[in-house]
């Protein structure tokens, strides 16, 4: 009997998977795509994500003790599901690798400019491999420690309050934006990570009937962190300035200067490494579950290694920032579609099986 993840830790885990590297660019993405008062969009998209979470909760309610694989394979045999599993595993591991590459590329904006990005990336991957080959309970425990280490960064935002002004906010809503649809997709991908809960639930301590609420709490925490940061960015920068600032959140952190210490962004940014690590590891963990379902002979170590190496080979030549952004947009779009599509497919499967009567509903 392995240990189970407590609901409280699940909330933290969800928050840590969700908040990723997109966070640094988020205020700019909002300013470019939605224009004035774009921070409101964070709240709106967060509601759409809530609906997505609701779908997932429905899957979990109707599943009758099965996990995702068993639900699917009740209708279609593993043989036929295999390509789908592999595709899913590939998408998620690619997403995870690209997020890592994106993180490394921002690191190189700040420091290590003369070092080969691939070698930095390999170091990150060694970390990911070592955490990824552990079981989910250990990963969750590590995540909790990472959370305690990083949540303090959020409160640095208090420093900026004297420099903010409501007058910069303007009374106009979503004016001067460029591309609302692309913006919503990008914002949606910034929230991604919650879909992993589909694979997590067999490992969650379900003795409390309302355990799924903690997923909402985790998502709520992400929404608060995102929307407060974006709101302060809109008060701190002027709109046109926000549009041309590459990483507004980094600029915010860089602005903090006290007598004792300055230029803390290089330090704080590296703390984000462990946050990114959780995102990377959890996506790879879900991918490795999928891979092991197709090839049961693989051990966790082997499957994680295979996934890392395959995705690294695929994205071998992707190391320029604009290329990474293009790839991330496409893979992120696919992942967003999966996050919405997967629970819907599962619900349809459950529905068909109930109709056929081989599923005691």
């Amino acid at each position, binding site marked *: 009997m392995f240990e189970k993840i407590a609901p409280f830790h699940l909330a933290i885990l969800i928050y840590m998977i969700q908040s990723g590297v997109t966070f640094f660019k988020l205020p700019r993405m909002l300013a470019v795509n939605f224009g004035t008062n774009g921070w409101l969009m964070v709240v709106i998209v967060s509601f759409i994500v809530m609906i997505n979470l609701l779908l997932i909760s429905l899957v979990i309610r109707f599943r009758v003790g099965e996990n995702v694989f068993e639900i699917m394979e009740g209708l279609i045999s593993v043989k036929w599901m295999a390509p789908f599993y592999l595709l899913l595993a590939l998408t998620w591991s690619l997403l995870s690798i690209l997020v890592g590459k994106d993180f490394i590329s921002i690191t190189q904006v700040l420091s290590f400019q003369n070092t080969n990005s691939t070698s930095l990336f390999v170091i990150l991957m060694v970390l990911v491999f070592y955490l990824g080959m552990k079981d989910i309970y250990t990963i969750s425990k590590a995540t909790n420690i990472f959370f305690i280490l990083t949540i303090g960064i959020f409160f640095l935002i208090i420093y900026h309050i004297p420099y903010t002004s409501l*007058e*910069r906010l303007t*009374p*106009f809503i979503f004016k001067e934006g460029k591309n609302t649809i692309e913006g919503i997709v990008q914002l949606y991908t910034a929230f991604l990570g919650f879909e992993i809960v589909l694979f997590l639930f067999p490992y969650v301590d379900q003795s409390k009937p309302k355990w799924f609420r903690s997923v909402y709490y985790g998502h709520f925490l992400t929404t608060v962190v995102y929307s407060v940061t974006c709101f302060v960015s809109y008060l701190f920068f*002027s709109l046109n300035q926000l549009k041309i600032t590459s990483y507004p959140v980094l*600029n915010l952190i860089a*602005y903090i200067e006290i007598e004792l210490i300055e230029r803390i962004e290089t330090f704080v940014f590296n703390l984000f490494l462990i946050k990114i690590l959780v995102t990377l590891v959890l996506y790879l963990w879900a991918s490795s579950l999928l891979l092991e379902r197709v090839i049961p002979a693989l051990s966790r170590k082997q499957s994680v290694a295979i996934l890392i190496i395959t995705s690294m080979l695929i994205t071998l030549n992707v190391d320029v920032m604009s290329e990474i952004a293009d790839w991330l947009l496409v893979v992120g779009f696919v992942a967003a579609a999966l996050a919405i599509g997967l629970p819907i497919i599962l619900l349809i499967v459950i529905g068909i099986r109930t109709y056929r009567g081989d599923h005691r509903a």
Partner: protein
Amino acid sequence: MRNLKLLVIVFSLIFLLLGCNDQKIIENLGFMSVMCFDKASDSDEEKMLVTSTFPSFSDESTSTEIKLDTVAYSKKEAEKQLSAKTEQQIVNGQIRSLIFGEEFASDGINRIIQSVERDREIGSQVKVVVAEGEASAILESIPIESTGNYVDKMLKKDTDKFTIPYADIHHFSRDLLDDGIDPVVPLIGVEGKDVVVKGSALFRGDQYVGNLTIPESKILLLLIGKVKSSDLVVKIPQESGYRNFFFSYNHSKPKVNVKKNGAGIKEIRIHVTMEGALLEDTGSHIKGDSPTNYKEVEKLIDRHLTNEAAKLIEILKEKQADSLGVSRIVRNSVSYGQWKSMKEEDLLEKVPVNISFNVVVRDNGMLQ
């Protein structure tokens, strides 16, 4: 298996050595603390004269400041040329202030600001200053070794007392890119042999257009935001001579009200309430032992400030520098469609600004 583990450890340790790849040895670096920009005497319009100082650690025991200048087309080019002039590698991570000469600033300083904002080495709290006359003259007049810090500290002292506006590159580029306000930065100058704070420099877009004296800057600061603590010397002409007040206030807040007639803007009303102590009054003791009349003093200061503010608005109108953010006030009170149509107009000129003050004398100090 054990061998594999060992291999992985050795492999990772080798990778850790990557940390040694980007080395910066302090002794070999020249930390620029200040950069001055002037127009080059060359005939070429684009060229600028860049002067900078940095400590030299060539001699172990003493650190002396070295001053170098060069003529270049851009900031980065200037840095490279300065670097070529010394045995040190010039780095700009410790830069504290950018000083622009008047003539250079009137051509626009956006290219420098953009370059500094883009530069990953430079933080955002780098002060932007305009110097009366030549910027490089400032460096010559500063007596002590640490030039960059000197200007920085001098400005900090005054911005803390709200006598001059605070301006770093973030503030400058924020106001420059905002469509409703123009940036204001501190102005310094040389008097005799000393560097003095002169007031504030007004910008229209990124071009320097005019300046304000220190009393005028104080009033501008009263109008654009909360002031925590500052003081005013008020001179009221009397039958013979002047009546002097020294009013030290520690609470001031502008309240902006936009009056509309139909779709248009009729006027903008700014009402400033301030609270403070009267610490000097040369009027009362002339009359003998009569105590100072609060109400009368309050009214006198009110009237004085209202007059001064009206004069300030005239200056801003004349220079076409919207340092007050009149356009922004208008923007925040109209619909988007209206704003789009009036955005290009000269709102500062068109919209009348009515300023009133409400001074509250909280106490008189130790005398009645």
